[in-house]
């Protein structure tokens, strides 16, 4: 029997005022009218707490795009869940933040795209930087726990030091330097986002320096981008081991990107309880444990640490979801990753480029129409 899951990731909407080119949401976004209703989410939170889950991560899309966010936070908190809001900041005014904190919000994570408005908004595809900075000051004023998150990639890594110092100035409790993960929209833009080896090395050094500088004051977390690592990431703490993700329309997924893997059937919280899904859903059992593993994973001593890496990345890069994640240096297909990163040019672009150099993340309902036009 698998131990109880620890965290529920609730993508409460795929609507978002930002269009970040590194977004890891699926290309096929859930339509607004398919979203779970307030009472449905509240029931899910209650089931999560009964299942022994401790954390709830409210994310999206932009979770603040839902008018009932305060109600959802209050319901989650009354179930005893540690409630974390992962937001771009848009849609959270000072008054609304006050209501969220009063409703029991434990922690706010604000994403930043850059230290400079123009560059950040070029990545986000929307005017947003000034509001984020303002929101950060309100979070401090209301004494809520605060993480500043920064997604990094080839287009912004050259001024990482400046960006880290900017984040330090916001006085967060935590800083998260997140290298882009190549799923969804980020995968579409991989060619423009993949960092160079030099950038990755410099980033490591700068993060170490910043950690020393802010020790005891700010916790700085950063993970090596997996294409440059020796071993893969322990994706989701193992498939179906620690987390359940519920998408806006109620589908229960073992991870953000699981829908890319063909042949998996995802159960919906509208029809099944979380407890049933955790113990019975085929999608959760598919890569749980070690039985599915191939060579070299099945006899590797690291299999209990990284679980063979990411199943979605294995499928996206090799076509086989059971393969060893090819970012692993032990993978027989690792050469394709070596080739991919050896092709990364040193070029970066300026925000003023007249033609967009990448694909901006779309919005749920608009996406369907553009897809139809293109076809």
């Amino acid at each position, binding site marked *: 029997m698998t131990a109880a899951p*620890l965290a529920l990731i609730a993508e409460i909407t795929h609507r978002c005022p930002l269009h970040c080119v590194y977004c890891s949401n699926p290309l096929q976004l859930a339509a607004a009218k398919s979203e779970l209703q307030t009472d449905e989410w509240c029931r899910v939170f209650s089931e999560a707490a009964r299942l022994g889950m*401790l*954390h709830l991560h409210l994310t999206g899309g932009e979770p603040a795009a839902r008018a009932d966010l305060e109600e959802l936070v209050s319901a989650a908190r009354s179930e*005893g869940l*540690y409630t*974390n809001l992962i937001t771009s900041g848009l849609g959270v005014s000072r008054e609304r933040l006050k209501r969220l904190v009063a409703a029991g919000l*434990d*922690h706010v*994570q604000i994403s930043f795209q850059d230290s400079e408005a123009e560059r950040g908004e070029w990545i986000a595809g929307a005017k947003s930087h000034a509001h984020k900075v303002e929101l950060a000051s309100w979070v401090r004023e209301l*004494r*809520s*726990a*605060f*993480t500043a998150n920064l997604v990094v990639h080839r287009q912004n890594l050259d001024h990482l030091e400046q960006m880290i110092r900017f984040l330090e100035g916001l006085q967060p*409790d*935590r800083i998260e330097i997140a290298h882009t993960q190549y799923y969804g929209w980020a995968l579409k833009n991989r060619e423009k986002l993949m960092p160079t080896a030099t950038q990755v090395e410099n980033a490591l050094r700068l993060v170490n320096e910043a950690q020393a500088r802010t*020790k*005891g004051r*700010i*916790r700085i*977390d950063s993970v090596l981008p997996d294409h440059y690592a020796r071993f893969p990431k322990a994706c989701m703490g193992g498939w179906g081991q620690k987390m359940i993700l519920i998408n806006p329309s109620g589908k229960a997924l073992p991870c953000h990107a699981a829908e890319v893997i063909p042949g998996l059937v995802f159960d919906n919280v509208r029809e099944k309880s979380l407890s049933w899904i955790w113990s019975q859903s085929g999608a959760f059992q598919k890569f749980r444990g070690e039985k599915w593993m191939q060579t070299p994973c099945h006899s590797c001593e690291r299999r209990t640490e990284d679980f063979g890496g990411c199943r979605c990345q294995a499928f996206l890069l090799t076509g086989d979801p059971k393969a060893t994640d090819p970012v692993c240096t032990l993978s027989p297909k690792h050469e394709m990753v070596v080739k991919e990163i050896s092709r990364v040019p040193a070029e970066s672009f300026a925000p003023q480029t007249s033609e967009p150099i990448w694909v901006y993340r779309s919005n749920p309902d608009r996406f369907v129409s553009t897809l139809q036009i293109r076809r």
Partner: protein
Amino acid sequence: MAIAENNKPTLASGCRWGGTPEEPVLLFPEGAIRVKGTGLAILGLCDGHRSFSEILAELQVQYFGADARRIREDAERFLEQLQEKRILDIR
């Protein structure tokens, strides 16, 4: 970074107790730790009111007969680790 006698350790913002009275869990943004034994004895005293020297004195009573210097060293190391993780504020 030694802890001063008059420092009053307290849970950092965003960190709180959860779980059940039998199995308390310390919750923070990136995770949770089940705290047991001496860890629980020490953290239970970090309420923002007790000073470090008061905490040490209470531990000395709870662990009667234990070497005072040893208690101080262990508690200091434990609290500093949690401070670096931003689970505890020491000021």
